[in-house]
């Protein structure tokens, strides 16, 4: 071969040139393919970055905006009023407990009499309803001028017949004796439009009830007076607070209006500065000059409020003394057991409330209207704020905690339910199921993912809610905390549905994790004589645990980010769930991070503080998702020795 003449081989130059022919727009196709794939991957990253930038751009302004709002809240004196008004809210709960206790106590005596009276009223109404037409005719005939006596007579007879028939057809409840029934029937048969007085027996029943009620009120006189004292104690204080609040609100509205006009003026002036056309410029400047309003003298108006500090303190002190006295006057006993517990709760609650009120009054002196609101306190007010109040005529608060707790509790419920179900299903499918079973289980579970979440929400409202409510009323389940439940739409309901939604993700990933456990481990365990169960629980599951944990975390990510179901099913009450209810708290309604965005974003005006607050929530949600996903990956890496 070596001896062959060289000319048959092409010259080196032409070899090099030929390779240059295969180019597209001067680029090597190999490189083009590489760029194509590379660019597709980078699109995902770029989109992610864009989302982040967009969220931040809309949301980051929230802090200064909210800072301004809180500043106004302070300067206009709203904060000052809230010092007293916030703890005063507790009064309503106490007072409603007392009212319940009083009515329950009174009922022990007056209930039979009241039932009889109400039953009689009901019966009378029924007769009147049935005889409405002849009565109407008769009334018209009576009003006619000149009167037509024959016609009146006819109608009167018709009405009497109808009344008699109706009175006869009535079902008289057992609270009436036979004689009473007869008398009632007679009286109802004789009802006519002219007689406005109640029939005698009904009158007697009314009188009976009044007597009984009076009797009950004397019997529980201590309780009744204590309750009245308590109710009345609030009035003078509330009056002062309301006056101050009205003043503060007025100031605030003026200040806000001034600010709006002021920004408007600045914008117009800026536009005028850049405008070249002299005509336009003149009109813009003119418009700007018109957009002025009187600046509010905050200091002056705040003086009107703080000037009444002493009076307010005095009122608080009076209020505290009176309610404490009411608490001391509360009798030890009440009509029923439930009422007794209520009274006891109130007796313990009042001193605490009084102490809170006094402490609040103590804070009034130290309050300064011109203390600046630092950005840190704004951040604190958002992240640790316990109130999310919007569209309020008083003051909007954007506190994150109620939403976060709702989301977390729901996610926790969902994960607690979904984890055992999906992991056990994955273990069964991977290790015990026959091929045919596998072919059935996997697609069915994966199909769940295809169910639109709005459909699930629908099921939650129409089916699961009722189911939980019915079950919670079963007498032998009453030991379960929170049973019987009040609300069909609650965190548990949402948690169940989210668990259902998370199962496919968690199942598939767990199953993959188990599948990835090296065959050799199973061989070794089998060869040592392990039973199938031993191999599964001592070797396969521990070896796949990283994958299972990361599956759970990814399921958590899915659950936290889910919107539709929680919006429809979680009950949407924006308040921190009442954890004092113990584990039963899961049956309370709540709102969530995702739900609030979906619900409110469409209704708020673009660029308002509310809008920005929702974007802040979006940012935090985004951060939580990133964190959960990062954890999932970290876990997967951390516990994966057999891949090392």
């Amino acid at each position, binding site marked *: 071969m070596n001896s062959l003449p060289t000319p048959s081989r092409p010259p080196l130059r032409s070899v090099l040139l030929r390779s240059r022919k295969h180019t597209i727009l001067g680029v090597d196709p190999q490189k083009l393919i590489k760029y194509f794939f590379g660019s597709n991957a980078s699109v995902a990253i770029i989109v992610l970055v864009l989302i982040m930038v967009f969220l931040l751009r809309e949301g980051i302004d929230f802090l200064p905006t909210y800072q301004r709002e809180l500043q106004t809240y302070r300067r206009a004196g709203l904060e000052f009023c809230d010092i007293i008004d916030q703890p005063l809210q507790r009064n309503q709960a106490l007072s409603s407990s007392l009212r319940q206790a009083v009515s329950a106590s009174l009922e022990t005596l007056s209930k039979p009499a009241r039932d009889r009276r109400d039953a009689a009223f009901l019966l009378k109404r029924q007769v009147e309803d049935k005889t409405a037409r002849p009565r109407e005719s008769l009334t018209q005939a009576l009003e006619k001028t000149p009167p037509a006596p024959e016609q009146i007579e006819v109608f009167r007879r018709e009405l009497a017949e109808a009344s008699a028939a109706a009175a006869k057809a009535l079902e008289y409840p057992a609270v009436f004796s036979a004689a009473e029934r007869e008398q009632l029937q007679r009286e109802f048969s004789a009802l006519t439009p002219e007689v406005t007085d109640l029939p005698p027996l009904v009158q007697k029943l009314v009188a009976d009830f009044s007597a009984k009620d009076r009797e009950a009120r004397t019997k529980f006189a201590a309780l009744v007076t204590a309750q009245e004292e308590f109710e009345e104690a609030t009035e003078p204080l509330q009056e002062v607070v309301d006056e101050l609040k009205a003043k503060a609100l007025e100031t605030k509205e003026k200040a806000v209006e001034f600010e709006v006009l002021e920004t408007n003026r600045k914008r117009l002036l800026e536009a005028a500065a850049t405008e070249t056309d002299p005509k336009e410029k003149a009109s813009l400047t003119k418009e700007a000059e018109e957009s002025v309003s009187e600046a509010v003298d905050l200091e002056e108006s705040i003086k009107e409020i703080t000037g009444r500090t002493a009076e307010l303190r005095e009122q608080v002190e009076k209020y505290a003394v009176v309610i404490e006295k009411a608490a001391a006057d509360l009798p030890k006993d009440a009509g029923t057991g439930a009422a007794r517990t209520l009274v006891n709760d109130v007796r313990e609650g009042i001193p605490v409330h009084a102490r809170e009120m006094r402490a609040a009054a103590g804070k009034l002196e130290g309050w300064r209207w011109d203390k600046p609101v630092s950005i840190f306190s704004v951040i604190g007010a958002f992240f640790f704020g316990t109130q999310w109040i919007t569209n309020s005529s008083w003051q909007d608060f954007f506190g994150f905690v109620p939403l976060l707790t709702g989301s977390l509790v729901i996610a926790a419920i969902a994960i607690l339910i979904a984890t055992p179900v999906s992991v056990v299903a994955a273990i069964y499918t991977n290790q015990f199921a026959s091929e045919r079973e596998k072919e059935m289980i996997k697609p069915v579970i994966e199909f769940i993912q295809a169910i639109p979440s709005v459909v699930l929400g629908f099921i939650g409202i129409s089916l699961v809610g009722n189911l939980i409510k019915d079950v919670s009323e079963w007498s032998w389940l009453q030991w379960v905390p929170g049973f019987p439940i009040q609300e069909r739409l609650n965190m548990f309901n949402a948690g169940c549905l989210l668990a259902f939604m998370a199962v496919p993700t968690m199942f598939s990933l767990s199953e993959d994790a188990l599948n990835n456990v090296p065959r050799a481990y199973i061989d070794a365990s089998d*060869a040592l*004589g392990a039973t199938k169960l031993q191999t599964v629980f001592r*070797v396969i599951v521990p070896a796949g645990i990283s994958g299972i944990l990361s599956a759970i975390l990814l399921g958590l990510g899915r659950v936290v980010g889910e919107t539709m179901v929680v919006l429809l099913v979680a009950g949407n009450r924006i308040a921190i769930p009442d954890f004092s209810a113990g584990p039963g708290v899961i049956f309370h309604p709540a709102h969530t991070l995702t739900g609030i965005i979906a619900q409110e974003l469409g209704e708020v005006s673009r660029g308002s503080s509310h809008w920005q607050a929702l974007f802040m929530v979006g940012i935090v949600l985004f951060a939580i998702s990133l964190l959960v996903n990062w954890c999932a990956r970290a876990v997967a890496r951390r516990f994966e020795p057999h891949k090392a």
Partner: protein
Amino acid sequence: MSADSTAQSTPPPVVQVRDMDFSYGASKALFDINLKVEYHRVTALIGPSGCGKSTLLRCINRMNDRVPSARVTKGEVLVKGKNIHDADVDLTQLRKQVGMVFQKSNPFPKSIYENVAYGLRIHGEKNKSVLDEAVERSLSHAALWEELKDRLHANALALSGGQQQRLCIARAIATVPDVLLMDEPCSALDPISTLKIEELMHQLAKEFTVVIVTHNMQQAVRVSDYTAFLHLGKLVEFAPTEELFTNPREKLTESYLRGTFS
């Protein structure tokens, strides 16, 4: 080896394969195998790739059970005189008596200690001191105790390949089996590790009966007392190792040993 002459006084072979046929579904893998494995001897199985060495080895602890449709179609396998396919045989107990070491080392992703203790634990041993004692004994047998006694709770996957394979041996012998099956235990190891394991084999033979599959003829000569040569699913020749290698009776064996095998 000379004990063969007085058949009456010898104990029964620990493993005896009698007229066994084995098939994977429709395809027959082993034909009419007869094999006796003596107590405290090392028996080597050699033969070209695919001749059925692993299959035969796996017949002894019924590891083939896990392959659906694979079964012994004729004959029987006796371990300590008991037919292992009898209905009253407990697979767990059988595998406790017949341990196995695989070609590729496969320690569990657990600590060294837990790896060795695994066999005892699954057989219900909970007593800490018994476990401690068994771990020490097994690791010593596998010539690992000195190296590893200070890091018993380190992850087994952090060990070198040779150490991992010896750990697998320790794990297999922790339950004190009568027979230890080894399927090419050194094929994935470097020469030094191989040497260590070969040395170990002589020690192990003092307490256990070893059946080893190997592709390495020298290894068979070095470690085994008996050698069986398989070809296309048939046991061609079974004899004391020296005899088989120096003076094979069958033509086929001779050509395989010479390497002039077609």
